[in-house]
C-alpha cells in the first residue's frame, strides 16, 4: 500500500493497485490560476490572490511538485513548459509583420538595399532574387519621390542613401521629365527562371 503522501479521503484508498489523483488533487492547492498561458494582457496579473506554491519559477519547473513524479493522469507536457517572453507578447506566427528581413541583421539589410537601389538607378534593369526585388521597390520609389521634389534638403537626403553622388545628380536632373506625370509605381518586376546554383527564384527589376 504505497501511500506516502497525505491520505485525506478514504473513498479511493482501497480501489486497487492503481493510483487515482482525484483524492490528492482535492487536497492540494488549486492549480489553474498559477499557470499563465500566452496572452495579450500587458498588465501584470493582480497580486491580490492568495499566494501560490511556486509563483516565480512557473516558466521552467512545474508548479505542482507532484507533476514531476510523472503520474499519467495529468497532461504533463502542456503544464511543464510555459513560454514566457518579454511580457506575454510572443506569437509563433508572422501575422501582420511587413518588414522583409532578407536573412540578414539590420545593418547588413540596410546596406544591401542601399546597394541594390544604387545599382538599379545606375543600370536601369538588374537581375536579382524575387525577395530582394520586391523589397527594394519601396526604396527606389522613395528615391524617385525625393528627386521629384528637387529641393536641396531632399537632395542631401538622397545623397545620404545612395552610394554614388553622380547617380543622385543624374537622377535629380532627369526625373522631372521622365516621371513627372506618373504617380508612383516607378518599377516593374518580371519573374524569370531560377538560378542554377541554388534554384533561387530570380526576377528582373527595372525602372518603368
Amino acid at each position, binding site marked *: 500500500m504505497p501511500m506516502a503522501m497525505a491520505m485525506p479521503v478514504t473513498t479511493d484508498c482501497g480501489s486497487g493497485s492503481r493510483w487515482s489523483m482525484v483524492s490528492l488533487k482535492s487536497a492540494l492547492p488549486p492549480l489553474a490560476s498559477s499557470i499563465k498561458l500566452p496572452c495579450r494582457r500587458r498588465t501584470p496579473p493582480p497580486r491580490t490572490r492568495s499566494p501560490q506554491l511556486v509563483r516565480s519559477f512557473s516558466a521552467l519547473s512545474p508548479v505542482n511538485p507532484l507533476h514531476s513524479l510523472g503520474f499519467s493522469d495529468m497532461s504533463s507536457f502542456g503544464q511543464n513548459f510555459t513560454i514566457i517572453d518579454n511580457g506575454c507578447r510572443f506569437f509563433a506566427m508572422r501575422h501582420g509583420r511587413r518588414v522583409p528581413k532578407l536573412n540578414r541583421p539590420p545593418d547588413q539589410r540596410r546596406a544591401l538595399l542601399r546597394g541594390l537601389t544604387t545599382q538599379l538607378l545606375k*543600370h536601369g534593369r538588374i537581375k536579382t532574387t524575387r525577395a530582394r526585388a520586391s523589397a527594394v521597390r519601396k526604396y527606389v520609389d522613395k528615391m524617385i519621390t525625393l528627386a521629384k521634389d528637387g529641393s536641396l534638403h531632399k537632395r542631401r537626403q538622397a545623397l545620404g542613401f545612395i552610394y554614388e553622388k553622380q547617380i543622385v545628380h543624374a537622377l535629380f536632373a532627369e526625373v522631372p521629365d521622365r516621371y513627372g506625370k506618373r504617380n508612383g509605381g516607378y518599377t516593374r518586376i518580371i519573374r524569370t527562371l531560377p538560378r542554377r546554383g541554388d534554384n533561387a527564384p530570380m526576377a528582373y527589376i527595372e525602372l518603368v
Partner: protein
Amino acid sequence: MASSVDPLVVGRVIGDVIDMFVPAVTMSVYYGSKHVTNGCDIKPSMTINPPKVAIDGLSDQLYTLVMTDPDAPSPSEPSMREWVHWIVSDIPGGTNPTRGKEILAYMGPRPPVGIHRYILVLFQQKGPLGAVQQPASRANFSTRFFANHLNLGLPVATVYFNAQKEPMTRRR
C-alpha cells in the same frame, strides 16, 4: 503585377517597340545550340554571328526580319531607342534569312550598361519590296515607322532575349 501573362507584354516589348498582334507564323531562333525563348539570357560572346532563324510559312510568302534593341545605350536612359542591329527582307517562307536580301548588315549585341532586350520581329510582306533604302543611322530607329513606311502591317512573330555586358575576367 502583370495584368497579362504574355511574356511580350510583361517584358514591355509590345508597347515599346511593336503593337499588340496575333502570332500567325512560328519562328525559332538559335544562337549556336541555344534556342531563344522570350526573356532568356544570352551572352554577347555567343551572338557575334547572326543566328539561325527558322521561319515556317507558305513558301510563296515573303517575310521581313528586323532586330532592334530598345534599351540603347542604357535601360534607364534609352536616348538612342531603338538601335537596329539587322534588317533582312524578301525571305521566302519556310527558309531562313540567308535566302533573303540583307538590307542592313548584322551587328552583334554589345550592351555597354545594364541589361538590354534584343527583339527579333518578323513581318509578312504583301509583295516583293524591291530596293529598300538603308536607314541613315542605326540609332533612333523606329520599328513602327519602318513597318508603316513599307506597308508591312502588324508583325506575325516576335521573340526577344536579354543580354548584358560580360565581365572582363572570368568569374571564379
